[in-house]
């Protein structure tokens, strides 16, 4: 008998059930198939324009800074402004994400754009979040060929673009979006839910920003 069989056997003996019980199996199959949403707090059920307000409120509560621009072509300018106002070099690390490509960073000739995964030397990284969760001020970033995970964690400053239309109200909405893109029960390798910049309270419970991930998170809402 394998460890697997022993463990499953012990679970069944302890519960006093058999693996072949059709009713139990049906309960599990339907729960997984339906994947019903549970209780969504009122705070997670807001109409569109209010969502953006609430999203910004919580993201700021957790230490992010927020800017809003009218359309994606204004992103490069906002990135330059952010870097300048924080006295940072005019250089960013960025994936080949289609939305970020549409931003046409050539419009900022002084800005160096390095593409691909981060090697840990970048001061600033730019990502596109596929969604956001208003109820907690959380960004939703999915990995993929054009979306390296390392950019979310290695640069000191993380600048994240999210389209206003993609700001959802609740966690459930974010999951529904992922299911719509990747298929039921399917996920990209990594989905990061990010709420504010990295921090640690491990020394005397005093919260200090910038533990291992970015020290600063700047969110640019598009539209």
């Amino acid at each position, binding site marked *: 008998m394998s460890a697997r069989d022993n463990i499953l056997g012990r679970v*069944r003996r302890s519960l006093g059930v058999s693996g072949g019980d059709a009713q139990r199996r049906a309960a599990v199959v339907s729960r997984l198939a339906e994947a019903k949403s549970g209780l969504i707090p009122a705070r997670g059920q807001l109409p569109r324009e209010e969502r953006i307000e609430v999203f910004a409120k919580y993201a700021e509560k957790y230490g992010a800074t927020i800017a809003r621009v009218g359309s994606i072509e204004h992103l490069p300018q906002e990135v330059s402004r952010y870097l300048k106002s924080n006295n940072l070099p005019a250089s960013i690390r960025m994936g080949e994400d289609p939305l970020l490509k549409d931003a046409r960073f050539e419009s900022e000739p002084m800005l160096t754009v390095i593409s691909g995964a981060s090697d840990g030397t970048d001061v600033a990284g730019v990502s596109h979040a596929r969604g956001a969760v208003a109820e907690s001020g959380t960004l939703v970033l999915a990995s993929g060929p054009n979306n390296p995970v390392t950019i979310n964690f290695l640069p000191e400053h993380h600048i994240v673009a999210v389209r206003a239309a993609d700001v959802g109200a609740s966690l459930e909405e974010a999951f529904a979006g992922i299911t719509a893109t990747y298929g039921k029960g399917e996920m990209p390798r*990594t989905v990061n839910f990010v709420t504010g910049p990295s921090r640690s309270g491990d020394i005397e419970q005093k919260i200090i920003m910038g533990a291992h991930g970015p020290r600063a998170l700047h969110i640019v809402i598009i539209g």
Partner: protein
Amino acid sequence: MQITTPNFKENATRALGDAALQKALKNVEIGFIAKRLAAADALPEFEALRDNARDIKNHTLAHLDLYLEEYEKKVIASGGHVHFAETAEDARAIILDICRKRNAKTVTKGKSMITEEIELNDFLEKNGITPVETDLGEYIIQLRGETPSHIIAPAVHLNKDQVEADFRRVHTHLPPERDLSQHEALLNEARQVLRQRYFEADVGITGANFLIAETGSSVIVTNEGNGDLTQTLGKCHVVVASLEKLVPTLNDCAQILRVLARSATGQDMSVYTTFSTGPKRADDPDGPEEYHVVLLDNGRTAMLGTEFQDMLRCIRCGACMNHCPVYHAVGGHAYGAVYPGPMGAVLTPSLSGIEVGGHLPNASTFCGRCESVCPMRIPLPKMMRHWREREFEKHLTPSAARYGLKFWAFFAKRPKLYRAAVSVVMPLLSVLGGTSRRISSLPLAGGWTKHREMPAPEGKTFLQAWAEKQAREGGR
């Protein structure tokens, strides 16, 4: 697990006389409680979400065999590997095997209580592999050769100057005249030192807060980002998780996530909640080439179907110890077990046997605060009483009962513990049905009964309840 639990009284006596520890423990009492309360109060649906969280885990545990099978299928379908480990020893052997196949020299680790439970670090070192803890608190205690004293704040027993001394002792490549007087400087130094280690690591090991049957994902919930760097930069990601981490769906996970961070640190969400599914995909520019999940039993299946099954709902938020007057008084190391505080008092005898951990449930004032804040509504005091009853059945009764009484005498003679046992927390007892009979036979019964007329509403601090009572009575 290195169990020193039979020495609780010696440990506690030492802890009470340790000025540095007493100073550090103040941070638990002050910080965590107020933050949790504010977060819970700010979400009107919080109590209903606790009910849902409890029900989700109850359903999962009742169908655990089937969810394990479904989960395993999904992990394999996404290109990952699942390993079942019956014991700590089996889990260690599986992990070593994975490391050896990759010729691993260095292993980075995200914070994981399960790897503490299986004592992985010692084992890896003995086998020529260097484990590097990357969570700041875990890194600090690894430098000190200590175990965590708290399940979410491993170094909560230490003060800043102790950390500074350790960094000076170990980071000898840095200029001795550097200024480490501020928290920021200490954090920066750890960040710098650990940065290189992520890139050097052959294998990254993390725990999991949840495993999702619907998608085959493992989930980590952190604030620092070290777990993410560990599992992204290591060429091979190994997840070590116990069986009960399973939940059916992403939406089920959402219900529990809403109570986890609020109960632990008072955040609406922790900074990073990360879902990992399989290894990196063919065209992904980063991420691990291999993905393994080690599913650990180590005594859990024996808890199913018993009066201790409810303990398997635990999501390791730490709220029970943050609100425990005994924990506040003596800290986590005094318990002498991997898992301290009320959850540890129930789990340790369950996992390690009644002979080693069976008296830990006595390290409690039965005030009921732990249950009142547990997001999963685990009846911790009731289960601690169950352990006492088991001692009865085991014919340990006469000595155990005497021991129990001695325990209370021990508490009564020590001012800090005595205050904990009879003062602020006592009013909360009255919200717990059925405890009074047992308690009235104990030496502090006078303290209990005296205060039992004044129930404090759940989730309020005593001072708030008191102020409200005064106001009510004043208005009459």
